[in-house]
């Protein structure tokens, strides 16, 4: 028998997310892990801009709301002044991979001891479904109405591959939230990242592949299938870097 009880960090009301949005599943997973680790009063969520920020409406933990894309910069300051706190930034792909690319790369390169959780749904959800840096080739959005063309807009940005090339990060992994297996792996990955942060191991980065039923113009169940056939072959889930794996071998 398995058990599941909703974390009391979440309000008794539903989230502000659309039906089937995996942002709410990601928020739920983070809350579950924080509750499991007994860090409810110690956790601090650095809020980005976009749909990813909506979790502050029904989450009882501490929040710090910062400018668009600057969550890793703000988290650096918070973590350096409060090293005992469990600091994490929850960012979407428009926030992290477009406007905040400098901040995330710099924070990762410095090996700051906090966690970034990156929800990648390949579109700007809150502003109406424009193309994001992670939008797939051929994917239709309101700014790429004939599908993304790499000749004019480049290729989808693979953040895990990019960050795992740096020497400083301690843990870099990508998980897909469209199946029970992926959700369980994501939960274990978030827990590992938080434990590594609490042990002072350094920068940890978790990418979660999510969906956007509203702006993909698909039903929630169809988005899960779309992720299987289109998203996962390009953004391959897996652990890209883990310094503790080397320690365990040695």
């Amino acid at each position, binding site marked *: *028998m*398995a*058990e*599941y*009880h*909703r*974390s009391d960090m*979440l309000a008794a*009301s*539903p*989230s502000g*997310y*659309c*039906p*089937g*949005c*995996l*942002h*709410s*599943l990601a928020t*739920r997973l983070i809350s579950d892990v924080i509750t499991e680790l007994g860090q409810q009063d110690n956790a601090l969520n650095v809020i980005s801009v976009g749909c990813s920020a909506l979790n502050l409406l029904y989450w009882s933990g501490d929040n710090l709301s910062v400018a668009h894309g600057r969550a890793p910069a703000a988290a650096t300051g918070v973590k350096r002044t409060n090293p005992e706190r469990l600091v994490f930034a929850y960012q979407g792909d428009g926030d992290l991979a477009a406007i905040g690319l400098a901040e995330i790369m710099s924070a990762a390169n410095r090996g700051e001891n906090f966690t970034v959780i990156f929800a990648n749904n390949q579109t700007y959800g809150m502003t109406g479904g424009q193309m994001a840096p992670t939008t797939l080739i051929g994917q239709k959005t309101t700014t790429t109405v004939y599908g993304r063309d790499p000749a004019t807009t480049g290729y989808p940005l693979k953040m895990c591959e990019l960050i795992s090339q740096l020497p400083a990060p301690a843990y870099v992994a990508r998980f897909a939230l469209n*199946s*029970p297996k992926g*959700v*369980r792996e994501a939960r274990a990955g978030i827990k590992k990242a938080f434990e590594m942060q609490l042990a002072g191991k350094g920068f940890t980065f978790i990418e979660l592949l999510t969906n956007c039923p509203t702006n993909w113009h698909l039903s*929630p*169940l169809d988005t*899960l299938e779309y992720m299987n056939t289109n998203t996962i072959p390009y953004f391959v889930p897996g652990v890209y870097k883990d310094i503790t794996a080397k320690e365990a071998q040695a």
Partner: protein
Amino acid sequence: MVVINDSLCKNCGYCVKFCPKHILEMGKTRNKRGHFYPVMTDAGKCIGCAICATMCPEGAIDVSEGKEG
């Protein structure tokens, strides 16, 4: 035992799709926000795997030890 908190449900259907025993189905009544919510058709067949709760974005499904319901 599976308890569905219908007031949190948004009718995404993930629990119905992933239940390995196919004993969840969308009900015919709406909650106060206007969403249909799932009901369990045969509680006796539930194996307590909690996959429905794992996939629920809202955490609307509570799974605990014991049979009944």
